[in-house]
């Protein structure tokens, strides 16, 4: 394959599926190369995305102002009640704090903010600088917790201490401290927690309803539309259902170890995976065949509504080509299937944080000629998008301008989306969005189409 434009040291993070070539493992789970423009973020970002939707806690970023400013109300994670998560709090460390330490400022900030907002808990995120100046945030948190009577949880998310995945882990660690501290009284045996679902544009509500229609009790959603009290009693559920594999698998594993709660991995994107996520939960309760019956009922009702509506999109989109570059690899699997169901093929598939198993599975799933990338960058992405003549890119806000500059359609499948793409209704929205972008007549003026001159 052509290596022009690919950074030395990155060749092993790229693979093109071709017959006759034995697939070697793609290199992944490494940190980004210095000097490459990675689409990844940092440890802090990982923690922040996982805990962000907890709506009745305050989230205080301990560090200079940037980290708090850039994550203020950044996601479409909605709440049915309190909205403390949409506020931005920072200790806004100044030079003197860096020299003399920021513990006092953190303490005062916490006391004031807790008094002002009366949250159910507080999460304290440490940023790069806190890791250097040696503030003992655990001690401050302990002190404040004792004085205020609410859980005050340190999240060790110094940006440079690992990758985004380590940030996920730090966030899960904080959640683990809450889980198990609430009463499990009255929780049904046929109950689950939904993990890794962040209620972007209300997606958790959609999913929760499907499960409730099956007679399943949802104890806690982590962390979409999250509430501290619900997190505290999450250990009362019989099963953990993990979506967004990257961020929450470690929590599921910890809960399995500590509370003996098994977990399954699911995805809510596309008809196939959405249906499977209902059946897989039903399979977990074999003594209750009525749950499986209800699951079949839900799927059948929803698909009956959805299928005819998708045909219009499929007709228009058949033969169009898509490139996918998203955060977690698990989402990529679903998107490939979802795109196929509306007639589209995938010419590029990649993720920021996939692991070896993910990429092996991707290789199996993908068509001949599909390029697979780990931790890519704009130069590479555009090179493949143009070479493979993609009509659509699916990614996040950082990928959006790449697509639009090159004159191809775009579907936002990241944390900032405002339209639910999960569930059966989400599949409709997804197809609609893809259709609206790919079929727009504006691309006729793009240089790649000759600019209509």
């Amino acid at each position, binding site marked *: 394959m052509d290596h022009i434009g690919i950074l030395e040291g990155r060749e092993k993070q790229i693979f093109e599926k071709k017959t006759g070539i034995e697939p070697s493992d793609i290199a992944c789970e490494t940190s980004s190369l210095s000097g*490459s423009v990675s689409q990844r973020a*940092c440890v802090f970002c990982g923690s922040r995305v996982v805990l962000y939707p907890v709506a009745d806690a305050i989230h205080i970023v301990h560090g*200079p*102002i940037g980290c708090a400013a850039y994550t203020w109300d950044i996601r479409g994670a909605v709440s049915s009640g309190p909205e403390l998560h949409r506020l931005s709090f920072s200790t806004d460390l100044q030079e003197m704090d860096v020299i003399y330490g920021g513990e006092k400022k953190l303490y005062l900030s916490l006391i004031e903010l807790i008094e002002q907002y009366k949250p159910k808990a507080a999460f304290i995120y440490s940023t790069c600088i806190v890791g250097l100046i040696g503030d003992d945030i655990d001690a401050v948190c302990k002190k404040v917790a004792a004085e205020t009577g609410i859980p005050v949880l340190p999240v060790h998310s110094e940006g440079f201490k690992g990758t985004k995945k380590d940030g996920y882990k730090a966030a899960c660690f904080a959640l683990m401290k809450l889980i198990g501290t609430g009463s499990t009284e009255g929780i049904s045996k046929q109950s689950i927690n939904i993990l890794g679902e962040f209620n972007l544009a209300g997606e958790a509500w959609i999913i929760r309803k499907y499960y409730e229609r099956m007679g399943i009790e949802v104890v806690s959603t982590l962390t979409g539309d999250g509430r501290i009290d619900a997190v505290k009693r999450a250990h009362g559920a019989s099963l953990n259902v993990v979506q967004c594999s990257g961020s929450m698998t470690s929590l599921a594993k910890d809960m399995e170890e500590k509370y003996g709660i098994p977990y399954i991995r699911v995805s809510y994107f596309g008809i196939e995976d959405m249906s499977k996520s209902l059946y897989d939960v039903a399979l977990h309760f074999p003594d209750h065949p009525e749950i499986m019956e209800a699951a079949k009922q839900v799927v059948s009702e929803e698909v009956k509504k959805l299928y005819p509506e998708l045909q219009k999109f499929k007709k228009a989109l058949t033969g169009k080509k898509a490139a996918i570059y998203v955060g977690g690899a698990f989402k990529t699997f679903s998107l490939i299937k979802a795109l196929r169901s509306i007639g589209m093929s995938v010419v590029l598939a990649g993720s920021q944080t996939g692991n070896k198993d993910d990429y092996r599975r991707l290789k199996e799933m993908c068509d001949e000629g599909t390029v697979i990338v780990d931790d890519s960058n704009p*130069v590479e992405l555009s090179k493949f998008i143009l070479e493979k003549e993609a009509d659509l890119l699916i990614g996040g806000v950082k990928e959006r301008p790449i697509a639009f500059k090159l004159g191809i359609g775009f579907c936002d499948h990241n944390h900032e989306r405002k339209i639910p793409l999960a569930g059966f209704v989400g599949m409709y929205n997804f197809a609609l969005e893809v259709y609206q972008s790919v079929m727009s007549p504006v691309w006729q003026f793009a240089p790649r189409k000759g600019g209509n001159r």
Partner: protein
Amino acid sequence: MKHAKTATQNACKLCNPLGACLAFRGIENCVPFLHGSQGCATYIRRYLISHYKEPIDIASSNFHEESAVFGGSHNLQVGLKNVTAQYKPEVIGIATTCLSETIGDDVPMILREYKKTYRNGTPMPIMIHASTPSYQGSHIDGFHAAVRATVETLAEKGERQKLVNIFPNMVSPADLRYLKEILSDFRLPFMLLPDYSQTMDGGPWGEYHRIPPGGTPASAIVAAGSAEASIEFGSTLAASKSAAGYLEEAFGVPRHQLSLPIGIKESDKFFDLLETLTEQPRPEKYEDERRRLVDAYADGHKYVFEKKVIIYGEEDLVVAMTAFLREIGMMPVLCASGGKSGQLKQRLTELIPDLEEQGIKVREGVDFVDIEEEAKVLKPDFLIGNSKGYTMSRKNNIPLLRIGFPIHDRFGGQRAHHIGYRGTQELFDRIVNTVIEQRQNASSIGYTYM
């Protein structure tokens, strides 16, 4: 409720490196490079993209634990090597972060070392280093630091030539284009820095550009030391921190500091200065723009008279906007900034001598919760500032007129004009329309002529 005084809530500022990245985008063939964690580059890219809607590549030295312990020299050098290989830039604009500043990386020394190691006959990019620790100042300080560092690195002494340096401050790409149009119409050779009018607001691409076309060439910046004068927009910008200040000190290039030319009076000062420098009257086109603006003021004056406004944003923008609002008869009840130069009130008083008398409040170093509390008492008719005031605007049902940066919840922020007669015209039209819309919405009759 007594409000917290320690924590910053809903900040009315951004961090230092962001401003530097934006400024570096205004140099031709330049890649901004952040010496720090990966997250800084990614967050800043995301933030800028949401306003400018352009791909913005910012490289990062991508610190790990070892770099934090043993220093970031290795990462910086590998990073520079990789960026050079992949982007083939003419210039790399390196800005530090809180991380690299705190561990005390000596960036100039690392750069010298790097040049020594990798100098093997092939031309090496010019490396500009701006010190931008996030725990000092805000994004606007990083912006000015990068502009000054660029000039410090590149400007050379030379025979005086008919050339004017323009340091426009953090204005929109549309403002930059307008500035260039004005200077060209005056037939005045100029060096505009930064110039991201094209890099942050350009056309479609047939292929991916590692670095978007546009920006001020390094070769043009070299000549800044031999210019006849520098014009710098910015009221609170100290000579010791500004590019024009450096050029005056190092090469004797006279520094003309004007406030951002918003409103007729301040725009007049800018055009007067251009007339003085070129010894010719302004082109008729600008007389026309000014006449149309005066006429519009007359047509719209009643809508805006004594309307109460809270204005917030970078200090220089606040100073200029306040002067403009006063000249059209509006009442800025609060002039607020997240910045903290210590000069905001002083500079405002220079342009608005009756500031105290009018009861105009001035507050530096505030966040949006502070502004919101003021708003509850001051009861403004609307807010003027960037998108980040939307949360309080919605909560308190006070309309928001969006100007400056960032505009994350409206379309076309990069194409909005603010400066000169044209920018003032656009602002005035938008202000009048805000009032009209408010009245129309509040009316039970629904007048179709307003």
